[in-house]
């Protein structure tokens, strides 16, 4: 029996886009290839990142402004989500930084980093930089469609993909970020 069509993960990248392998040397082509590869990785990530864990992993009191001392996860849900992010990173031969963003109910127009993988996705986040105005590409993802964003200085490429829970609600945005300037080396 084949997989029901409504259960398939959406195809976002051009068909045949590889997850690994050499990238073009020419900068513009390289940017395009990285973005496509991250889009394909985001599609695979939809099978690994648990949307219900994204929805539930933060304790209700921590979903709005709260002291860092009191910030608290549901450990099981958080571990499930973290496990997914770490696995997604390992599928690529690029040094992909992963993170999941959520909307802040108490701060319209702002996104908050819910959880990061092995490092902060550096285009939009960093040490103690978790609450940000929602960039256009991220807003597109919160609206249900993946977006691609390059940093103004050209250093980073991020793909931002909607994360849906079991009710098919968009409950967060997965960011996959790669440094384009060679700062981050391939890990495989």
């Amino acid at each position, binding site marked *: 029996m084949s997989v029901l069509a409504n259960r398939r993960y959406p195809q976002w990248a051009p068909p045949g886009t590889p997850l690994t392998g050499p990238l073009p040397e020419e900068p513009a082509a390289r940017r395009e290839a990285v973005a496509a590869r991250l889009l394909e990785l985001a599609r695979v990530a939809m099978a690994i990142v648990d949307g219900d864990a994204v929805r539930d*992993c933060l304790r209700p009191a921590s979903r709005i402004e709260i002291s860092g*001392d*009191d910030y*608290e996860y549901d450990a099981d849900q958080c571990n499930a989500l*973290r496990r997914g992010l*770490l696995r997604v990173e390992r599928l690529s031969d690029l040094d992909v930084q992963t993170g999941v963003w959520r909307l802040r109910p108490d701060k319209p127009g702002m996104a908050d980093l819910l*959880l*990061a993988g*092995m490092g902060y996705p550096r285009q939009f986040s960093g040490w103690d930089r978790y609450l940000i105005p929602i960039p256009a590409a991220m807003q597109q993802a919160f609206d249900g469609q993946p977006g691609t964003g390059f940093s103004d200085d050209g250093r980073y490429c991020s793909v931002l993909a909607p994360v849906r829970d079991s009710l098919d609600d968009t409950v967060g945005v997965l960011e996959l970020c790669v440094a384009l300037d060679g700062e981050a080396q391939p890990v495989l």
Partner: protein
Amino acid sequence: MRLQVLSDRVRTSPATGEVIPRDLPTSEAGRSLESDFGQRPLVRVPRGGVASFQVVVTTEKPSDGSEIALQAGPWQAQGGALDRVSVFYQWPCRLSNEEWTFEGLVPFEVYRAARSAACQEPLGKRSHHAFWVDVPAPREAKPGVYQGSVGVPGAEPLGVEVEVLPIELPLVPRITVDLNSYATHIERHHPGLTGEQLTECETSYYREAHDNRAVLHYLPYGHAGEMARGYAPPLAGRGRNLHVADWTAYDRRFGPLLDGTAMAGSPGGERPIPHWYLPFNFDWPADYAHFGTRGYDHEFAQVLAEFRRHIQERGWTETSFEVFFNHKKRYRYYPYDGDERKHEADRGAFRHYRALVDRAAAMAGPAGARAKIIYRTDISWSFAHDATDDQIGPLYDLWVIGFSNFSWTRQGVEAILERGQKAWWYGGGSGPDGQTTDADRLAVLCWRRGGDGFMPAWLSMAGDAALDRADPLSMLYPGRRFGFDRALGSIRLRRVRSGTETADLLEMLGAEGRALVDRLARARDEDWWTPTPAWALYPPETMNNDMYGSESIANPLAQRDPHTPAVIRERAIDALMEG
């Protein structure tokens, strides 16, 4: 040029050459100590200690000080000499209130050899230059009064006596002073160094701390669990096959610290570094993608067992290797606070990792039994609960407790000590804007409370800019601007050394030492502790920082003459000499 000799208990002003007012003695005993030193400069030092004093040189014309050819020592007595004298140029720094004082210490030969641009400190050319002189008293030195002098060409030398006492300090200080820092700071402050150059630079930081009887504690991983380069040996395999692939680089880089050869000739004692953070964390060596599985547990315990065996095989059995989790939820990586637990739910993780530490010991068996692997926690909110809790209390070998919590939870500290565990506190240290003897006071306070050590600040390694602008935390500075890719010490670090020496002298006196401290601090036994605030016994989840801010912390020494620690030290020496 004019010379003036001062004790090591004060700072001077780079602008006036005078002692800064907050360091002036306010008691009869303190004034007497200073005036006695002024009339007859004499430093008493136990064997294994270091005699220190200062020289202020006033030049006829403002200068950068590099032309001052200061000569110090050697110090000689019949049948011996103290000839390992070190002279440091005191670097001026600006305080938050825009006053100037001194803090960083640059080896004077380094300063003189540095390019002139390096010597252009922000205060500009001055007439008053301060020097710090260290005269170590080796353990084998013959007791007696050693004569020496300081001078510059064309000026009358000034005599300074060093009396080596027939008292020997213990090789390991009774009070551990922990200089905490974090992975990658050395590389950040000395960019471009690699290989042996980086190792030599790094070792100089450990050595500078050790020379002053403190411990550089360099946490090797970040909050995600990522490792500073080289601070963990490479691994190979997965699951039951996970193992250390190669110890070579790890041994070459850290072996000299762990076997003590890097401390050869150190005035802080020829011994291995006493404490060492292991690389173990939530994501090393075990793969956090498997957290909660038997594979994760096996990976963690198996590699820790391998560490045990390796440590024993290498003979690194004097160092306490710490398993410590610094991760915090707020940094968006893990669902547990490994550090500063506040939530009840985190307790399970601590118990689990203790079980893995014990499992590793069992796996290593006799081949790793002599390795000192200890489980450390840094704790504040939950301390009053956890220290006396039947399940949590026994988990840890080393408790590093918030200064306030330590101060108001006497029953908790005593429970730790009764179990044979160690109790340090963190915090409570002051910057160069504090009184010069603040670190002495902390050491005496720690000893008087029965504690085992303290971490004055969470970060003890400053960047270059902090040389000019006082950093309230750091005691170690980079020498790079002087063309010297080595650590620079500081006046506060010298006070740490002095304070731990005083604590050792008091320890030799035992109960008599406690009575001496109480008498000079005019304190009763209970005055050394703060009453436990009611909220400290509530569930930690109900606490907040405002509660902490509302409490004042008992420290009888803080209300006394800043020279009281020195008076205590001298009286302790008197008592030991009489005894």
